[in-house]
């Protein structure tokens, strides 16, 4: 199948779920869907289009939290960015980990870094941060860095360790 045929198939199978379809260039295509349609979109990308899951990027924007699922169509030299926008106050989305195993770890990472809740995730726990990382502190949120700097100025210096 050529690139245009595959994209036409994606449009047909996704149907009304597409909010926005934009071709930046021959190699980069961007599709926006509603958060509640993400499972269906993932199924179409993985099973119908046989795309390879590259990764997902969570972005904290002024208008809410955005997740971009990057899918590679290797034979067609094309990367499809499937994006969805969540509310900042209550970011909840279905987990794709039961559908595509490769998404399991990246969803854990987005949960601890951006505080996105993934419903029905098989094994949700900290991936990169320590186990007792304070709840509600998400490093990749825009408002996080100030907290660290505040802590730095108030923290008293501890003494250097010495030889026994």
């Amino acid at each position, binding site marked *: 199948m050529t690139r245009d045929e595959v994209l036409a198939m994606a449009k047909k199978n996704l149907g009304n779920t597409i909010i926005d379809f934009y071709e930046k260039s021959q190699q980069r295509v961007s599709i926006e869907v509603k958060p509640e349609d993400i499972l269906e979109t993932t199924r179409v990308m993985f099973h119908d289009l046989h795309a390879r899951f590259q990764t997902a990027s969570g972005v904290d924007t002024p208008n809410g939290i955005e997740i971009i699922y990057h899918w590679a169509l290797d034979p067609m030299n094309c990367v499809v960015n499937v994006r969805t926008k969540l509310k900042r106050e209550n970011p909840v989305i279905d987990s794709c980990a039961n559908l595509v195993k490769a998404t399991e770890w990246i969803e854990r990472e987005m949960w601890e870094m951006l505080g996105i809740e993934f419903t029905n995730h098989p094994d949700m726990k900290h991936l990169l*941060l*320590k186990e007792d*990382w304070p709840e509600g502190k998400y*490093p990749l949120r825009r408002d*996080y*860095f100030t907290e*660290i700097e505040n802590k730095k100025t108030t923290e008293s210096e*501890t003494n*250097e*360790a*010495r*030889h*026994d």
Partner: protein
Amino acid sequence: MSFAVNALTRSLNVFHLAGSACNNCDIEILATLTPKYDLERFGLVLVGSIRHADLILLSGIFNKKSAIRVKEVYEQAPKPVVVVAIGGCACSGGMFRDSYNWDQPVNKYIPIDAYLPGCPPKPEAMISAVVKLITKLRGKKL
């Protein structure tokens, strides 16, 4: 020269301890031991267990998760033990000082005897550091 220092400086058992490093200092440490540079000609041997260590080569920053573990490993080493911080990260934190996962400077956890900056230090620099360290331990002038 005390018996301990004499025994220590004849044949150092090296243990290589990595905090949160980018791997490059660790590779250069191993490269120092392989045939081209051959640190073993000074009697240095890489050992697999901290219980045998005389010299700890420390690389990388300490992050919030690894700091406690590295400190635990250091406490298991038989004393006296000499610690060398290898690379810019272990010496000062380098470019990771502003990170949210950066814990504290390495010397807040482990007393460091020698600093070897560089990103990464070349094997020649490591050999020179070890030779200087041995000279210093024997109480001779550099």
